């Protein structure tokens, strides 16, 4: 069965797509970035946990395989449509009111830098109901609080079905907080993003 009508409407209305992933999210993220069309008409922001001194590997692989223009975020980059941004390793990425990114090297959150919570929370403050966010597989609880804040600001929020995720803890934490409007499997997520 395809996504329901209300969900589809909200997905189409979203201008900013936030994808947060940690351990076990690589495969699904790779499929997403490969399948999203060049002209999605939205801004896509990826926040992925990873080690600090091996920065170029994931970015390179993603950039080589994505149809959408992809860019590792630099400080004060302006958010543009049809661009896929990836939060750099060893920084937190924040979104400012003027529609640009700012970076921050402060303490890790949930042992993570970039932290999904930090980006989700600042997106909620600036863009509120214009966002849609998906929290994918992961082995800690980063992203749950941020997803809740997005939901409360009117964003469309989705958690990956924990039973379908390689690491259940991250989406599970979000679901337990009541942060997810929808809980979807990988296949349901793809269907939604491509419709």
């Amino acid at each position: 069965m395809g996504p329901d009508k209300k969900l589809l409407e909200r997905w189409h209305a979203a201008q900013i797509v936030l994808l947060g992933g940690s351990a076990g999210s690589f495969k699904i993220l790779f499929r997403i970035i490969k399948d999203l069309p060049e002209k999605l008409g939205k801004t896509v922001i990826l926040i992925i946990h990873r080690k600090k001194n091996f920065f170029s590997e994931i970015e390179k692989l993603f950039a080589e395989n994505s149809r959408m223009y992809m860019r590792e975020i630099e400080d004060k980059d302006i958010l543009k449509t049809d661009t896929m941004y990836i939060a750099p390793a060893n920084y937190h990425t924040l979104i400012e009111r003027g529609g640009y990114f700012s970076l921050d090297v402060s303490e890790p959150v949930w042992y993570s830098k970039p932290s999904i919570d930090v980006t989700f929370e600042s997106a909620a403050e600036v863009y509120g109901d214009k966002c849609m966010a998906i929290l994918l597989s992961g082995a800690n609880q980063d992203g749950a609080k941020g997803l809740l804040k997005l939901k409360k600001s009117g964003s469309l929020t989705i958690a990956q079905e924990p039973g379908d995720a390689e690491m259940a803890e991250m989406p599970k934490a979000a679901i337990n907080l009541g942060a997810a409007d929808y809980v979807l499997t990988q296949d349901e997520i793809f269907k939604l993003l491509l419709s």
Partner: protein
Amino acid sequence: MDTEQGIISHAQVHELIDIVRKVHGFDFSGYTKASLKRRLTRIMLLNKFEFYDLKHVLINDADFFQGFLEEITVNVTEMFRDPSFYRAVNSQVVPYLSTYQHVKIWSAGCSTGEEVYSMAILLNEAGLGKKSFIYGTDINTEVLKEARKGIYSLRNIKSYAENYQYTDLKGSITDHFTILYDAASIHNELKQNTLFSVHNLISDTVFNEFQMISCRNVFIYFETYLQERILDLFYKSLCPLGYLCLGSKETIRSDTFKSKFKVINQKENIYQKVGT
């Protein structure tokens, strides 16, 4: 569960900026607001403050401010953060520095000194240790005390050791420290040619002439107009053909200064002053 939501509003952030400027003389109006707001929220949570409590202590409790300043400015730093940057300095800047009889370097926003000592190690390894002098500055007097000591916890040193391995410098990071139980003290010969002092990039001016200025992961906290003002300060503080190093995700956005600085290394954001 709901404690995070809207703990401080955008207007309240501006109110606090105003108070800090009027009462304490520090101007945070050019700071990026999302990050500043996160720091303020953190201070309120740590102290179990409501907005009005914070306002009250900022106005009435002079002793509170030093700690506030320490919390509001991000003092997270590493030795040899971004090892590829140090490799680039070694291959692209050191040959230029070695042509000088005396080398003066400014590390602006040096926090607890890790970058100053990283640079001191690099210059020492390049044979420039004896003729170079590094000035570390910060707005925060407390972090400068730590910087002067040059003593770091062993746990931190362990995490810096991995960075060091990627710099291609010989040996290991511990070669430059004396280990004392759970702490490591930087060798005296590396400390000799350093000086740490208070300098506020927003309100203070040129204090010396340098062959190289390193200001890494400071601009990320500033709006672009403030970055431009500080670029002007750096431009005036550099000798002709002097080098400016920014953080690996910080670029010169200002058109005026794009023409005054030549890009030496795009990825590491190393620039050279052109013109006089």
